[in-house]
Structures are given as C-alpha cells and as structure tokens.
C-alpha cells in the first residue's frame, strides 16, 4: 500500500484509492486535513507555526511550515486534482495543537497554531467540521484515501477516529 509521509512543514494530496496520507507525532503542530468528496481527494499540511513573517526565506522554501502560507499552498495542491480553488465543498478536519502540562501563555504554541489556522480558513469561507485539538499528548495521523477515515494514535493510548 502506498504511503505519503509528511514531515514537519510538508503538504501533500492523493486521489489513489490504495494510498494513505500520514504524519507522525504532532506536538504543538497542527495537521489540516482536506477531504474533497467530489474528486475523492485527500490533502494534508503539517503546520508548525502560525505566522510566516518571522522567516520569509523558510516560508518560501517550506510554505507548509506556517499557517498563513500552508493553507493556500495545500489548496493550490488540491486544485491539481480538480478540486475547487477556494475549497468549495471540501470537508476540513483539524488535529494536534497539544500543550505541555501547566503551560503558560508564551508556551501555548498549539493554541496559537489552531487559532491562526481557523482565521485563514475563515478567510476562504471554510471551517472545520471536526477537530481534535489540545491536550497533553502527541498524535500520529493516518488517513485512508479510499474511505477518508482519519485515524489518530498516540503511544500508550488506544487508537481513535476523527
């Protein structure tokens, strides 16, 4: 079975029924998942930080790294599979954005990522239908292109679906 493995700041999409799209161990990073029922395409971007203004060079090299550049680049990628360029009809899911215990405001990177992502999605008229955000644990995400099923796993916990 083919696998598209996405590292930090990577994005990708597939419409191959046998494939899975996967990203490992999201901590404060947030994975934005787009499922297009019309073209049966699955896309994902692994966002690490909210705002690309801190490093324009990095944003150019790896646009998926930041929320503000990552969502447009994922949408662009999805259009290659015939999806609508502003995401019309797409189902969006979010997961990740964890925190350490007793976090203070400075360390709420996961929360800032999630907020930034939601803002950008709103600017495209999109919103998440389901999300699994926050908490104090890491998440590995596996999406089956054939069924669109999103499976999450974390060491020491039973798997769950989103």
């Amino acid at each position: 079975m083919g696998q598209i493995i996405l590292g930090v700041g990577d994005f990708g999409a597939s419409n191959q029924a046998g494939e899975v799209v996967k990203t490992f161990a999201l901590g404060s990073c947030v994975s934005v998942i787009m499922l297009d029922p019309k073209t049966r395409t699955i896309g994902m971007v692994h966002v690490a930080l909210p705002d690309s203004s801190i490093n324009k060079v990095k944003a150019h090299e790896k646009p998926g790294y930041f929320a503000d550049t990552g969502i447009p680049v994922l949408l662009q990628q999805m259009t290659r599979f015939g999806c609508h360029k502003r995401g019309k009809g797409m189902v969006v899911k979010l997961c990740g954005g964890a925190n350490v215990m007793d976090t203070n405001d400075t360390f709420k990177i996961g929360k800032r990522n999630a907020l930034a992502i939601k803002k950008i999605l709103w600017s495209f008229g999109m919103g998440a239908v389901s999300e699994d955000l926050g908490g104090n644990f890491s998440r590995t995400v596996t999406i089956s292109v054939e069924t669109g099923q999103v499976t999450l796993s974390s060491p020491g916990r039973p798997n769950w679906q989103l």
Partner: protein
Amino acid sequence: MKKIGQDELQKIVKSVPMLSASASQLLQLTAKPDHELLEIVTLVRTDATLTARVLKVVNSAAFGLINDITSIDRAISYLGERIIVSIAIGDCAGKLFEKELSGYEAAGGDLWKHDLRTAIAAREVVVQSDAEISPDLAFTAGLLHDIGKALISDYLKDSAPEALALISSQDSKDYLEAEEQMIGFDHTRAGFELAKVWKLPAELAEVIHHHHNPADAVDQYRELVYAVHLGDNIAMLGGFGTGSDSMQYRLDPNYSDYFNLTPKTLANIMLTVDMEFEKLAQSLGNSGDAEE
C-alpha cells in the same frame, strides 16, 4: 509491577559501559567556564578514533565543503565545541541512546533525537535570551538529560497505559511521579546515579537530576537546569518526545526569572531547532554511533 530496589539500581547503573577516557575528559573540560578551544584540540588528538570521526563528520555532505578539511584543528574550530561533544558522547554511549525504549513505547533512536533537539533548544534559549551561562554547556546538558530513561525503560515494559491513567486520575502529578509509583525510581534519579558512576561534572549531574523540577536545583546551577527544562519542553512540543511520556510533565513558569521568552522568541527558537536538527542529524547520522 516490580519495584527496583536501591541495590538493583546500583547493579543496573554499574552494568552500563563507562564513557571513554577522552569523552569523560572532554565533558570535564567543557564544563569549565574558562576553557579554550586549543585544549579541546589537544584532547581530541589523543584519541585516534575520535579524531577520525570528527574528520569524517566535518567532511560529510551536510556541511557541503568544497575542499576536504584534513587538519583536526581546523575541523574542530569549524564544527564547534557542541558538535565535538556530540560525536564523543555518541561514539561511546551510542548504544544507550539508540536503545528502543519499550517501556515508553518509543522506537530505537527516538531518545537520541529527543536529546539532540533538547540540546539545540536549550542552547538557543540561552543564545536568544542573552543569558550569561555558556550556550555550549546548555547543549551538552541537553544531550545527557534523559539518559536515565535508557536505564529504566525495560522495567517499565507495558506500563504506559497505567502511567497515563495515574496522571489522568491525578494520582501522579506527572510522568516522573508515575514512574516512581510504579517501579520505585524515576528516570532522573536513575540518570543521576549513572552521572555519579560516570563522574560527570556537577552541573551536568544537577541537570540530569532536576530537569523536570528545576526549582529543586542548587542555586549555582539553577539557570542551566531551567535552560534544559525549557529545551526539553520545546523538543516535546516539536513532536520529538520519547513516546508515551511526551508532554506529560509540568512547565515551571519561573523560568522567566532567568530567560525572557516572548511568543515570537519561542517561535524563532522552534524554527532554529528544526533547521539545526536537520543539519546535525544528517552530519552525525541518526545517532552518534551511526558509523555503518
């Protein structure tokens, strides 16, 4: 779950191979505030294997040098102290760092990656907040902070769900306390015992012992312990924990007595950690002993 007694812990610690003479001396030397690069060069020269490894790393594709560096002096000044220390530790304790941490449901190599990211992050915390302590010492301390996990992991086999349940029911305040409740010792205590056997400098032993509770560290080394406490948290948030215990520890907000971190500084640190890690992991191999 079987508890480890003090005698058994001593047995475990004593079964761990000693550091090489040159690695041990390198850790002593680099912990001194007034050491010079020349002293590191002199020390590395006494160890032919280490010299060869340093030259191999500097000439690896990761650094993209046009002409090979053949002199050890140039190699060391080019790579910098922290990379030399990583090579030396990885060479003689690589097996420990590479070990699969089954007790934490973490794969082989995860500990080394977590330690390397903690090291880079602790160093960046010091650099980006203009702190007074040595950035390179923060790096070394980060590299060694979790060594105790390799010692107790086998005894924690299949315990991850129980540990997480203890924390979620608030019977344990964090994973450290859960370890203690389940097997009688936590990884910081085990690591501290190894630090004594390895005769590590006091600063490094203090970091290993108190990196989850930095307020308990002695005054003299507390700032360094806080730097690694932050580095550890940053590594876990970046998705590089060591399995089931990731993010199951408490952040001590009093780090702000030593380091001025804004959300923007933190974002910059996280970005630097990602970039530096890629380069270091590529040049050192996934672990320090990835010779083959």
